[in-house]
């Protein structure tokens, strides 16, 4: 059997299990916006996600912390459809992301059309910005508005301008990415993701590739947007102070599993597990 | 399968088996020219590639001149020139040697560029380390630079050999009885089978090209074991 067929079998099986548990009640917050159920992911023989259950609600700011290699980035990339789960199920607004029903109601792997419909709800900001170097700042931000949402150039331009104003780069409209600093590039990338008004945005270690003096401006922009509240954020980060300040909930993961989760106070003031305590202590040592 | 079509198949098979001796004869000529041109081309490639990196200006200039001139030339015109025009200038070569000379000169120029760029791609540190070990210039080249450069040359050289095999079909123009020429003669006798003959001809060339690609892959694995 091919690898792909095996993958499909894995996620289809989990789909059947999920349907059986459909009636189970969600908590007082109601139906989650994003839900991971028993999600695993392997690259060849290496299992990077070993079974994750997780719910994220509309507007929630969720911070993911943990040592590198803990699979945090893979979790975000699966939500953005950049990686396919090996098994388990991932849904947005109650609709499975990686499976779809055919006309007879049978479950089958999601096709491109299904993925495209689902991607309207998700956005992503990358560690290495991934701006399009051959397009101006304005065109970077308007490209998807015109070609995906079908806005006119004028409407898209207006929306891009107000978004770029929010990230403080209105004066860079006609610059090319190569003319910007790293911090400015990342702010453009944030504008590019948010201008599509997704329900959830994955921020994948967005300050890791920046010079230390440029980190502040990017975090400030994210904090500002977080205050507005509408967009749910999955913040995969190494910046503990930032996670503490912005997140509603913090998740500590290690080696492909969730080790501990709770409010920022719980996690940073009253860590329960040995692993989390070691992790936080080591960070403290580095800082001292 | 209906009896009729299997009968047609049998007919086809027996026709093809009638052609095979001629095609095999032609294939032998094609292989011979490929191998002889290959020897000439590889020698010229090594000499001109190294020559282009020589410390002596006249040698650099000569090697560069050869590479540029023969890469700019059209192989088929060169073949005509060697076979038809050179005898007027007093050099009367047989068909085989005309073909070998023209193809060897042409492919050798491309090979020279491969040799040069493979050697230039070796990190400078390798050269400096071999100087630091006080190796002689010859030992530097033979023990340090060339073994690494050959690993880099292999994939493009393999492709060049396939180009060479393909270019031997041009000897058809000087009426050498190679594979293509034999097929054209068969076509005269079995005119209605033209598509089958050319299809078979393409297939034979494809198999021959694969016969070049396979040992090159093997050699590549063997020579790059240290990677």
């Amino acid at each position: 059997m091919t690898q792909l067929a095996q993958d499909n079998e894995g996620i289809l099986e989990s789909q059947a299990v999920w349907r059986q548990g459909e009636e189970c009640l969600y908590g007082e917050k109601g139906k989650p916006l994003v839900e991971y159920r028993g999600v695993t992911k392997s690259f060849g023989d290496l299992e990077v996600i070993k079974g994750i259950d997780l719910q994220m609600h509309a507007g929630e700011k969720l911070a993911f912390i943990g040592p590198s290699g803990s699979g945090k980035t893979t979790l975000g990339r699966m939500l953005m459809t950049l990686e396919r789960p090996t098994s388990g199920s991932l849904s947005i607004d109650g609709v499975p992301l990686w499976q779809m029903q055919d006309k007879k109601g049978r479950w089958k792997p999601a096709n491109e059309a299904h993925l495209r419909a689902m991607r309207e709800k998700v956005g992503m900001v990358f560690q290495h910005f991934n701006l399009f170097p051959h397009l101006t700042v304005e065109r970077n931000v308007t490209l998807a508005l015109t070609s995906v949402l079908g806005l006119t150039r004028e409407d898209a331009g207006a929306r891009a301008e107000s978004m770029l104003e929010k990230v403080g780069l209105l004066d860079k409209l006609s610059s090319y990415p190569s003319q910007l600093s790293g911090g400015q590039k990342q702010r453009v990338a944030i504008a590019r993701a948010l201008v599509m008004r997704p329900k959830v945005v994955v921020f994948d270690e967005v300050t890791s590739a920046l010079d230390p003096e440029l980190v502040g401006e990017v975090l400030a922009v994210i904090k500002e947007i977080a205050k507005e509240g509408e967009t749910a954020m999955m913040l995969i980060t190494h910046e503990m102070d930032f996670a503490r300040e912005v997140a509603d909930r913090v998740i500590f993961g290690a080696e492909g599993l969730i080790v501990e989760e709770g409010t920022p106070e719980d996690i940073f003031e009253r860590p329960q597990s040995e692993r989390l305590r070691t992790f936080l202590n080591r960070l403290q040592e580095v800082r001292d | 399968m209906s009896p009729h079509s299997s009968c047609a198949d049998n007919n086809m098979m027996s026709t093809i088996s009638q052609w095979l001796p001629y095609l095999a004869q032609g294939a032998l000529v094609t292989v011979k020219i490929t191998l002889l041109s290959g020897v000439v081309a590889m020698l010229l490639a090594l000499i001109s590639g190294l020559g282009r990196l020589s410390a002596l200006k006249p040698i650099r200039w000569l090697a560069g001149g050869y590479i540029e001139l023969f890469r700019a030339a059209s192989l088929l015109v060169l073949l005509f020139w060697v076979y038809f025009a050179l005898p007027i200038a007093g050099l009367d070569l047989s068909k085989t040697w005309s073909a070998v000379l023209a193809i060897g000169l042409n492919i050798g120029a491309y090979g020279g560029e491969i040799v040069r760029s493979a050697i230039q791609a070796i990190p400078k540190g390798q050269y400096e380390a071999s100087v630091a070990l006080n190796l002689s210039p010859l030992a530097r080249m033979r023990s340090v630079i060339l073994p690494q450069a050959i690993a880099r040359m292999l994939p493009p050289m393999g492709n060049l050999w396939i180009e060479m095999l393909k270019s031997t079909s041009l000897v058809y123009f000087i009426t050498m009885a190679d594979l293509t020429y034999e097929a054209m003669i068969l076509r005269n006798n079995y005119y209605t089978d033209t598509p089958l003959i050319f299809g078979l001809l393409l297939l034979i060339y494809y198999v021959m090209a694969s016969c070049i690609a396979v040992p090159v892959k093997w050699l590549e694995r063997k020579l790059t074991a240290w990677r």
Partner: protein
Amino acid sequence: MWSWDYAMEVSLVLLRALPAALLAAFSGFIIAATVGLAIAALVRSRFTAVRRIASGVAHFIRSTPLLVQLFFLYYSLPMLVPVSMTAFWTGAIGLGLHYSTYMSEVYRSGIDALPKGQWEASTALNLSKRRTWLSVILPQAIPPVLPIMGNYLIVIFKETPTLSAITYIELLLRAKNEASISYRVFEPYTIAGIIFIVVSLIMSFLVGRLEKGWRRRTSA
């Protein structure tokens, strides 16, 4: 052995055949560039079968001689399907198909040189496949490989004498005809060879200029 008068005379005759050779080369080049792009896209298809077939066919075409392909197109295609093409079109299409397999590799090198993040950002922005290719990938992948494509134009030009086998009158066939009329072979073939060398060198000089200009613009 060498007559300057005859050389001058035959030069003029051969130069008059140059436009035919250049026309075949340019037509072949345009076909190669177009079909090559299609192959480059097909070998990146989502469907395994499409990928396999596209790369298999390209590999077959690249492994077999242009001359035999021309014979196949010119002599057997009309026996298989009800089309017959002129020598010019057979030549242009033959050159185009043959070199499209090389051109697809050139495109591939340009596409492979792009960071994976460009594809991922396109997915994250929910761009369609078509839009991703047209607005993100190709505008970045093609300009750096234009000089390599230019070199293939030169290679194609040098292959035009092969079209004489299917009776397309270009430089070599004209030289051959001249030789058969005058019974002098040295001048026509020598001059044909020189014309190819000179035109190739001029073309590669122009390609070099293009490359330098491109480098200057990107480094600025």
